[in-house]
């Protein structure tokens, strides 16, 4: 019946979470409110800004436009899983070194977009890096340092 909760199991950053959610719950709200993984941000809430970017079964998606129920049985990667314990991911180190984060609100989504890009294309050109983050809006840092960080991270790994 409408309004009934649905039992889902989602693998987030390698860990299985079993929860009951209403059908209306977005993957974004599931991550933030049910799992308390608040690294993923809500920006526009309508698939324009990329702040809520996560990797779902290997593909970069806006978590605000996915129902949590759609992620049942799927693998999700979020910003919380990017570092290996205390060791930052090469992208995180490069972001820090180039000053590619200012206010930081777009950064988790930006980093996941960059990870998805490098997962599929370990040595992107400048244009490919720019295309890879074209769905992620940044209003303060500027894309120059972000693209530089992607190029630096690609070189390092």
């Amino acid at each position: 019946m409408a309004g009934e909760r649905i039992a889902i199991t989602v693998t987030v950053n390698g860990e299985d979470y079993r929860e009951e959610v209403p059908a209306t719950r977005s993957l974004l709200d599931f991550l933030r409110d049910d799992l308390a993984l608040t690294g993923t941000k809500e920006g526009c809430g309508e698939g324009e800004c990329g702040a809520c970017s996560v990797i779902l079964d290997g593909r970069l998606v806006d978590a605000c436009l996915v129902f949590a129920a759609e992620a049942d049985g799927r693998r999700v990667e979020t910003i919380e899983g990017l570092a290996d314990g205390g060791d930052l991911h090469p992208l995180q180190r490069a972001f820090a070194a180039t000053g590619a984060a200012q206010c930081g609100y777009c950064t988790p989504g930006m980093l996941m977009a960059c990870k998805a890009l490098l997962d599929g294309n370990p040595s992107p050109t400048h244009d490919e890096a720019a295309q890879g983050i074209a769905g992620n809006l940044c209003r303060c840092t500027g894309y120059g340092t972000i693209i530089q960080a992607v190029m630096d991270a690609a070189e390092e790994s």
Partner: protein
Amino acid sequence: MRPFNYLAPTRLDEALSLLTPQAVPLAGGTDLFLRMERRQTQPDTVVDLKRIPGMDGVEAVDGGIRIGALALMETLAASPLISDPYDALAQSARVVGSIQTRNRATVGGNLANASPAADTATPLMALGATVEAADAGGTREIPLDELFLGPGRTALREGELLTAVRVPALPARAGSGFQRCVRTAMDIAVVNCAAFVQLDEDGVVAEARIALGAVGPTPLRAPAAENRLEGRRFDPAAAEEAADCAAEDARAIDDVRASADYRREMVRVLTRRAVGNAFRRAQGEA
């Protein structure tokens, strides 16, 4: 968002039996999710199609291709079955939204939503595509030219699901081109245009198909422009005349993205370029 019942069948016949008038099918959700959030669509039941195996691929069939309705824009953009022969279609899939959107948005959703600006609609019309529509009684084919009835309205009957798109074999000496004009990279098209030409052995146009998007209540063909090309060899004047005809064929309106006058002018420019692209490919130059 109004509460609803979420169902994720694993067989097509099961999905079809669930598509009551109060239910909506869910593919990528990039349009549906927002419409539900804004309460423009308030279904009792959402039938997620993504657990049905085999609906998201591209396969070679009868010399042409069959694209599952759930094939992603990224799949279309990357498929070798599409990217060379059906160049216009591959190009259109590459410019839909962001990578996040292209990883969710499906060709079936792009068509069934019947947006006048749907980017894959114009190349598929120019390529002579048909769609497969299934219901409990069986499957029928609908020429894409007959699918769109108005903004958000299609010839799909109640309970009928768009399950695949078929693109016929590309004849010898044929080629296609796609052009698009947007305000900003992530915006929907102000105008889009796709052209297809097939040449005879003497390089004369045997058949031309031109489709225009965002310049009418549905994606539409430009018959005057097509007629102007048929029987002609390629030269800049022919493309120019077809472009003028296409601007007449367009039924552009003023809206937030552009004025009708600007749209007609863009139809002229984009048609000229798309026809040029199609010719070059038909002549094996591109």
